[in-house]
Every structure is written in C-alpha cells, then in structure tokens.
C-alpha cells in the first residue's frame, strides 16, 4: 500500500475517525490528545498535498475505486490545496489553545464531546475543500455546520443558545438553497461531478433552470459566507461562542464558503456565464462595498470586543468579495490571498481575545480598560492584529489590499482605490477604540492584579500573530499560491 497515493482520503478520514474515537475514549485528556494528533496529522497531509500539487498538478482520487464522473471524486488543485492547508493549519494551532481555554469555559463532563465536535467540524470543512462532487459538498457543508451550531451553543452566556439557534435557521435555509441549486444542475446535466458538470453546462448556460440554479447557489452560499446583507447570524454567533470556537470559525468557516462560491462560479458555471452575461460584477461590487462600509461603521459603535471584531469580519468578507467582482487574475489573487491573510489575522485576534476573557473575565470595552498595563503582551498582540485588519505595511492585510488596489487600477476604477482606503480608515477607528481603552485608561481596581495570559493560551495565539507579520513580509506562499489558483480558475495558466 502506497500511502502517498491515498493522502486525499486521509485528509478527511483522519479527523473524521478521531471524532467517534474521542467519544469512545470519553476521557478528556485522551480525547484531546487524539483529536490534536489527528489535526496535526491532517495538517501534515495538507502540506504534502500542497507540495504534490505544486510539483505535478491536480490530484484526482476515486473513492471506492469508482471512476469519476460516476463515483465520488476527491480533487485537489492549487486552490483547494491552499484552503486545506489553511483549515488544517488553523485547527492545529487552535486545538492546543482549546485545552487551556475550555478548561475555564466548559463543564468538564462535556469536554470529550467538544473535541469530537471540533474534529467533525474540521472533517467537514476539509471535505468541502477537497471534494469534487456537488452533493458531497453539501453533505460536508452540513457536517461542518451542524457541528459548529453545537460548538457555538456551548458558550457560557445564555445568549449563545439563541445565537446558535439563529445560525441554525439561517444556515439551514442557506444549505437548502444550495441543495435546490445542485438539484437543478443535476436535472439539467445528469451528473454531480463538478468538473463534468462544468463541461456539460457549457452549451446550456443561458437555459432558465441553469440561471435559477446560479441564483439559488449564490444566495445559499452568500448566507453561509455572511455576505452583507445576509450576515445577521454572524456577530452573535462569534461573540457568544467559546473563545477557541470563535477563533476557529472566524478563521475558517466563512473562508471555506468563499471557496465553494469560487468553485461554482469559475469551475462549474464558468466565468463568461456568470460575469459576462449577467450583471454579477456590479451586484457583487455594490454588496461588497456596502458590507465594507456598513459593517465597519457598525463595528465602531460596539461595546464588546468580540462583537466589534465579528462585525469587522463581515467587513473583511466585503474585501474578499470585492476581489471576485473584478473578474480578473489580479482581483482573484487578492481574494484568495485575503482569505488566507484575514483567516490568520482574525484567528490570532480571537485567540488573544480568549486570553483577555480568561484574564479580565470579559471582553467589554469597559472591562479591558488599562489592559495595556496588566496584560501588556496580549494587548500588544491585539494591536498588531488590528494593524493587520487596517492593512498597515508589514502586516498580511497590507499585501492583499495592495493587490485589491492593483486590480482596481487595472480596471481604471480610481474611485474604488479611494473607497478601499476610506474603509480602511473606518478600520482605524474601530481598532483605535481598543487602543484607547487599553492604553489611555487606568485598569479597574478589582482587575489591577490580573496577570499575563498563561503559556497554553499565549503560544498558539502568538503563532498566528507571528504568521500575520510573516505573511506581510514574505508573500511567496500566500500570493504565490493565490496567483496560481487565480490563473487556474480563469483558465489562463497551468492548473
């Protein structure tokens, strides 16, 4: 048996097998070890897959040896390899953090179930990125969604329950829209394999059921990726979930949905069908800009840091979608690079907020007064990530915004450059609210003796903060992979 040939299967199976094993073992230490090892192994597999794709092109894996398009195909190309690396990498960093974090936030008898759910969520997200089958994509989407509803509901606050319920309603509506879209495509083409579907759709892109399918898929996936104005579920879900869950979902869940959108737009419907014949460019441009400005403006007036940065996520999704709306290689490069950069920055930010929660007992702005004095490292890390969100040179956020501006200039849309910079100024405003609370106020009397976060929380968080800086200085991995993936999606380069 040649293990290297079976890496695509292992990518999903490792975390998927860790979940029931964690339930069987029941011990929280054993469950933690098992799921963490599975996540690290999955991360290693994703790196190997990425190297393999870079060296020798896309990998196709026939599950059960049923050749595609009849069987379910796992397909790894440069875009999915990057997404897999992102999802598994974030999980590998967040899990060690989760141990120290849920120790404080969750009842001990549910710890093993937390790890099992986390493993399922990881398997689902990795599955979305790797599968080449439309219905399989829906099933993995539901696996990751259902487990994330549970993870969010585990939050300490009772509002976590309502947030999880609302997310469940919105998420299920979104998923059902996706199934309707996939169903219509299946009725038209008679196939579920995404690549095969793309070939067969070419001569029928203006048929009405195909257009209806495009509409259903766009709305369904937009619900999942929290595109303004379909973002209502996101702020509460991120704000009241346990810290480790907020970080993991903020970094991966919406990103994987963006991947699904890219996959359907460019690999199935094809770029001409979506952008040349329909006014999708204008539509996405308007929604992206509205998201960037409205969500940033709302973020400025939040009292809770977790909610503040959750709204900032909605704004950042705006940047990501803005890149898609350009329909150019540079624009897509910006989108895909920003997927990774924002995931790393926001993940680090929410991990640090978890450390704040552990130290200060809450994340409201009133409570974190003077945190720059009592938890200097954590506060400094949050500021660094905040600079990343604004897009200051030297951070990851700058790189992707730079490519967005390049894409806008390519199209000759000078006014867009101005708008991108203006929305970054709004980001300055909401990050400043933290800076003001952290450095220009004295700590509350009862919190003056709080210590710096323990190593179990600080090390994973700083890993992601370090990655934010790293990706700001060395762009070969992020922009290099993103450019290859963008060229593949638009069919202008080698796959």
């Amino acid at each position, binding site marked *: 048996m040649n293990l290297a040939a079976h890496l695509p299967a292992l990518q999903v199976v490792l975390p998927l097998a860790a979940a029931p094993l964690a339930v069987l073992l029941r011990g929280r230490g054993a469950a933690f070890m098992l799921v963490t090892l599975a996540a690290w192994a999955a991360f290693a597999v994703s790196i190997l897959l990425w190297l393999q794709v870079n060296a020798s092109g896309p990998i196709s894996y026939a599950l059960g040896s049923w050749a595609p398009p009849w069987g379910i195909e796992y397909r790894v190309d440069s875009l999915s390899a990057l997404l897999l690396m992102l999802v598994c990498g974030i999980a590998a960093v967040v899990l060690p953090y989760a141990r120290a974090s849920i120790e404080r936030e969750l009842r001990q008898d549910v710890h093993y179930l937390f790890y099992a759910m986390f493993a399922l969520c990881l398997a689902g997200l990795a599955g979305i990125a790797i599968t080449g089958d439309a*219905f399989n994509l829906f*099933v993995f989407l539901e696996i990751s969604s*259902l487990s994330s*509803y549970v993870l969010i509901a585990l939050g300490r606050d009772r509002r976590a*329950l309502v947030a999880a*319920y609302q997310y469940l309603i919105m998420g299920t509506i979104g998923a*059902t829209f996706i199934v309707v879209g996939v169903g219509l495509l299946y009725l038209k083409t008679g196939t579920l394999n995404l690549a095969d579907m793309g070939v067969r759709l070419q001569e029928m892109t203006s048929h009405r059921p195909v257009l209806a399918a495009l509409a259903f898929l766009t709305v369904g996936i937009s619900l999942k990726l929290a595109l303004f104005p379909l973002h209502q579920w996101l702020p509460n879900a991120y704000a009241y979930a346990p810290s480790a869950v907020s970080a993991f979902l903020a970094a991966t869940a919406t990103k994987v949905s963006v991947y699904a959108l890219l996959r359907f737009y460019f690999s199935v419907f094809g770029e001409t069908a979506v952008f040349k014949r329909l006014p999708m460019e204008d539509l996405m441009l308007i929604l992206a800009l509205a998201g960037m400005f409205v969500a940033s403006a709302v973020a400025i007036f939040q*009292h809770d840091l977790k909610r503040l940065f959750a709204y900032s996520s909605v704004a950042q999704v705006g940047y990501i979608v803005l890149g898609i709306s350009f329909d150019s290689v540079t624009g897509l490069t910006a989108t895909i690079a920003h997927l990774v950069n924002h995931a790393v920055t926001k993940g680090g930010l929410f991990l640090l907020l978890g450390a704040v929660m552990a130290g200060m007992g809450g994340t409201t702005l009133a409570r974190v007064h003077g945190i720059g004095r009592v938890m200097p490292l954590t506060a400094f890390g949050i500021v660094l990530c905040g600079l990343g969100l604004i897009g200051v040179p030297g951070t990851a956020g700058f790189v992707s915004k730079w490519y967005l501006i390049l894409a806008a200039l390519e199209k000759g849309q000078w006014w867009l450059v101005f708008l991108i910079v203006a929305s970054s100024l709004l980001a300055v405003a909401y990050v400043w609210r933290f800076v003001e609370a952290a450095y220009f106020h004295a700590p509350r009397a009862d919190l003056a003796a709080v210590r710096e976060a323990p190593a179990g929380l600080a090390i994973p968080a700083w890993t992601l903060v370090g990655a934010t800086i790293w990706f700001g200085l060395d762009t070969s991995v992020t922009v290099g992979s993103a450019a290859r993936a963008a060229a593949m999606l638009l069919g202008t380069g080698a796959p």
Partner: protein
Amino acid sequence: MLAHIWSHFDYWAMIFLAMAGLFIVIARGNLIKKLVGLGIFQTSVYLLYVAPGKIVGGTAPIVAEGFRVYSNPLPHVLILTAIVVGVATLALGLALVVRIREAYDSIEEDEILRRDQAPDGGGEA
C-alpha cells in the same frame, strides 16, 4: 397552458411547499413553529429531487428478467442523505429550543430578545 401547468404539477407542489415553509420561518415568532416551517421547506426539496427520478412505467432498479425500464435510483440515495441531515438539524434545533426555554422560560422570539435587553447594562455576563 393548463396542460403545461398540469404536466409540471410536481414542481408546483414543490414551489408551494417551499414558499409555505419559508413563510413560516420568517413570519412566526415561536421557535418551534419556525423549526416546523424549516422542516416543510427542506421537505419541498426532497420532492424536487425524487419526482424527476420516477420514469413512467419504470420499475425499481433491480436487475431481473423481463424488465427493461428502470427508475433512476440516484436521487433517492441523495435524498436519503438529505433526510438524515434534516432529521439531525431538527433534533439539534429542538434541543436548542429546550435549552433556550430552560434559560429564558419562553420560546417566543420577541420575548427572548426583550429579556436579553432588559438586564443588559453593558452586556456583561
């Protein structure tokens, strides 16, 4: 025209169910009723898949002497999976409602929102 509508009656049924379900989800404030609406909405999609899989005169897709025309089994398999997903969603949704009722003593959306707003004072838990 009428014949056209009649020949696509399964689609009309699907559209009616989908709209009815979605309407309940949006218009009702009761958390259980919302889940019922969500269930109806999901069920409508099962119809979209299963109905075209039936071929007039076709039999179950089991190879046997004397049968030539078979119905397409794939949509049924897909929908079996979707039904399982629907059951899981419903069970999880109801479990959340039970927990919400224990925490808030109500399953009316506006009532729950009001209770969260009342003792807010900066939102500290």
